[in-house]
């Protein structure tokens, strides 16, 4: 069955593909996880959803969230189609 929900806006739920890196990717064993999300939700809501993940949930201390390749505050809205990434503490150089 075709997934018509997002494009027609007949439901307020959608799937978000969350990209993982570094220790998160290694822990989870995936570079992307899919989480169900709701319209009007924020980065803070996404954090709560991720905190319930059986593996990732315990490893989110100090992590940032990037939407569309920009670090975002907890009150930023997450929209369908956003490029979403969880960023563990960074260590370049």
């Amino acid at each position, binding site marked *: 069955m075709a997934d018509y929900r997002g494009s027609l806006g007949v439901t307020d739920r959608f799937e978000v593909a969350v990209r993982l890196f570094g220790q998160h990717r290694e822990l989870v064993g995936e570079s992307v996880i899919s989480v169900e999300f709701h319209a009007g939700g924020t980065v803070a809501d996404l954090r709560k959803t991720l905190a319930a993940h059986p593996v990732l949930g315990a490893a989110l201390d100090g992590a940032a969230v990037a939407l569309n390749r920009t670090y975002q*505050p907890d009150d930023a809205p997450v929209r369908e189609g956003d490029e979403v990434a969880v*960023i563990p503490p960074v260590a*370049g*150089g």
Partner: protein
Amino acid sequence: MTVAGSVRGSEPPAGVLVAEVTRDELDGADLLRRLGSQSDGAVLVFEGRVRDHNSGREVVALHYDAYREMADDVLREIASEALQKSGASSIGVRHRVGSLAPPCVSLVVAVAAAHRRPAYEASSYVIEELKRRLPLWKREEYADGTSRWLGGRTPPVSQPDPVPSTGRELG
């Protein structure tokens, strides 16, 4: 968001020769040769290298992972800010990813400026900022076969406030 949107995209901003994350081998001297003009009295290159020890343990490799698409954007922003803040005239930054053994070069920052002070300032700014906000991670592998992801910093949500160009005093 106060993102420096103007420097996002495929083209480096003015004065930024290159700012990218790459799997390729790095060569600071080559980057330095491509920078600067006759009005630049100071040129310098910084190379960050993989060292063979950390916290008393023998290191045999560093494995770098990056959010490549975002990291290129962030590096361009940082390089552009470095020029604006220091008054240096041109800059090139490359950060390597993949598995690197000592003494491989993991980072090069090359700067050209009219005087020494803006050159040092720009170079230092790039390194400090990329440690703060470049989406890149490293796992250290030890001689005993174990490894661990190195602790890092939580990147800030907002970019630093724009600062007028300074550093144009004689160096």
